């Protein structure tokens, strides 16, 4: 059985990311991590595009985009 997934995913504007980790805290799926204290990175396999990180990000640099699977 394959899980039906939304085709919406979170995207981080990495050059503006301050790596505060607020997004990591709110992601219900553990789909976002801070890489080496530099920037957040989304695990596309885990992300369901719920948008919690988008709301939380203090710099507002995460957005949800439609993607083709």
């Amino acid at each position, binding site marked *: 059985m394959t*899980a039906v*997934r939304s085709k919406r995913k979170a995207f*981080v504007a*990495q050059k*503006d990311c*301050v*790596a*505060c*980790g*607020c997004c*990591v*805290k709110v*992601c*219900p*799926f*553990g*789909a976002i991590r*801070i*890489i*080496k*204290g*530099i*920037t957040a*990175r*989304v695990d*596309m*396999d*885990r992300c*369901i595009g719920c948008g919690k990180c988008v*709301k*939380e*990000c*203090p*710099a*507002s*640099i995460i957005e949800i985009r439609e993607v083709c699977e």
Partner: protein
Amino acid sequence: MTSIRSMKKQWYDYLWIFSLSYLILGFINIMFAWLGLLCFFIPLIIAIIKGTKGYCSRYCGRGQLFSLLGGRFGLSRKKDIPGWMKSKWFRYGFLVFFFAMFFLMLWNTYLVFAGAQDLKQVVTLLWTFKVPWKWAYHGTLFHPGVAQFAFGFYSVMLTSTILGLITMVLFKPRSWCVYCPMGTMTQLICKARSGRNGVKLSS
């Protein structure tokens, strides 16, 4: 397979109590201001040794306090922060300014230690407004310079809390995190550390 992560609270999710107590204790006895050095050294040590910004997301009590006040207590407009506030120019500029003021504070402490200046029982807010703070000073067992540092350091902490609260109300709860000098500095340390190993960041 995507699975929901446990959101169980950990001990470090309550560190906002430490930050709140710190602010209150500064009104009772200024010498408690020395405890604030923990918020300076722990993030730096984590960044230098582990090369992560683990402090920000896990242990930063101040960030948690802003989250709580702006989130659960609804004291934030939750609007986007202006573009210039998240620019490198502003973030690095604020870091430099913050440190310049920090060293000025250390210099004033030195002058008291050297006997060239008397202890000033004031807390300077926003680097400008000198607020008499006599009620929180009950003498010191050590040199007056030790107390001068406490006044200076508490000024730094209270000033940054006020700025953080203002941007919390105007923008998102943790807007302070965008231009927090400690955050900017630990990110720079992490960048410098991984720069040598050539980290690949694209997702």
